[in-house]
């Protein structure tokens, strides 16, 4: 029964290509996070605004992002929009899908964080002559980012894991895509994906440890 011979060398020989894939994976994750944070901020401001349509758009985005599978969101960005004659590359579709997802979850985190900051903080800013935007920017946002730092770190880990879904829209330059292609060539499925798993594991550990380091530097109060 146990006649399977592991051929690690054959798989390890492909490590450089997989590491190249890991770089692309990180690229997508980092970009989706940065753009996602910007959109999450905008969604948060829309939610705080007095305009009903803006509130509704923000709520719709956030609820769809949180209540449907990420894979479906990526399909939407690739196959869905094709119905309108828009054709994105796999990379772009993946990036849009993950960014959409990130922004929704982050906006929800930001909302929770905002609730934890007393109203009197903004009021103190206003009473010093700051505009509401200034007091949001200089007083509320820094505190909000601190409170949501841990959820943001988790979302970054999620973003890395979600890049593996790109393969479903034809992405083949990221870590999962590269591994899949190599698998089609060599059929060393277990060995190749085990190595990919280790690389993913290391990436997520670096992110969590890095985040802890950044937090201790950034938040000394």
């Amino acid at each position, binding site marked *: *029964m*146990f*006649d*399977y011979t592991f051929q690690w060398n054959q798989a390890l020989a492909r490590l450089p290509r997989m590491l190249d894939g890991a770089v692309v994976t990180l690229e997508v994750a980092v970009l989706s996070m940065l753009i996602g944070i910007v959109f999450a901020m905008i969604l948060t401001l829309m939610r705080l605004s007095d305009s009903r349509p803006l509130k509704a758009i923000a709520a719709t985005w956030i*609820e*769809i992002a*949180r*209540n*449907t*599978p*990420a*894979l*479906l969101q990526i*399909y*939407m960005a690739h*196959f*869905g*929009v*094709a*119905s*309108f004659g828009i054709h994105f590359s796999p990379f772009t579709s993946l990036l849009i899908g993950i960014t959409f997802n990130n922004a929704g979850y982050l906006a929800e985190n930001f909302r929770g964080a905002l609730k934890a900051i007393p109203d009197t903080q903004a009021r103190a800013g206003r009473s010093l002559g700051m505009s509401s935007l200034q007091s949001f920017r200089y007083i509320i946002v820094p505190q909000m980012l601190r409170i949501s730092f841990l959820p943001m770190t988790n979302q970054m*880990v999620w973003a890395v*894991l*979600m*890049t*593996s*879904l790109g*393969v479903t829209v034809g992405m083949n330059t990221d870590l*999962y895509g590269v591994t899949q292609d190599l698998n089609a060539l060599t059929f060393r*499925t*277990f060995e190749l*994906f*085990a190595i*990919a*798993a280790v690389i*993913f*594991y290391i990436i*997520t*550990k670096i992110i969590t440890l890095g985040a802890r380091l950044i937090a201790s530097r950034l938040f000394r109060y």
Partner: protein
Amino acid sequence: MFETSLTAADFLFLAKGAGMTIIVTAISVVIGTILGILFGVIRVQLGAILSAPLTFFLDIFRSVPLLIQLVLANAFLGMVLKLQLSGFFVACMVLSLYTSAYCAEIVRGGIDAVPATTRRAARSLGMTWVQDMRHIVMPLATRVALPSWIGLALGVMKDSALVYVVQVTELLKSTQILITRLQEPLFLLLICGAFYFIISFPLARFGGYLEKRWSND
């Protein structure tokens, strides 16, 4: 006004996919929760150092893409061990462990949220460890853990969309098959998304409501 070639048979096909999504999710959440409670309690009881191997093992499920977990389990059981297992079995097995990894964290968080003084009070009244767990810790921990657990269950449902990779035709895979045939991606994806949303949204709201209510007292 809206033309579609979606037939009743196609719709039934989608419904079957939805059924599969629910079955896989239900099985995984039930088994995953039982295992998760077990793992969580073990971690609290043993302490950080003794439970380190378990912690490491569970952490893998949270640090490696689910897609890879499924592929690896399938390859290991099928190619290495040469076991003839259905994709459905592999899917439920992996998703259960995946669920248990997150659930253990939630359980641990819940137990940790019970103040040590409360527990000492219970023990000082002569309660045994089991009685303390059963009458004091679990009821209090459940309050902390339930909203997160609802979130986890819904997360598992959404993540179950990935079991297509071990040849289980759940809702999203069914949708994709129809897309290939009917070439109506937007419409079909909207139907599929609506299904997930209709289940997830109210439950997520309910979880949020519980969290708010319980954090206020």
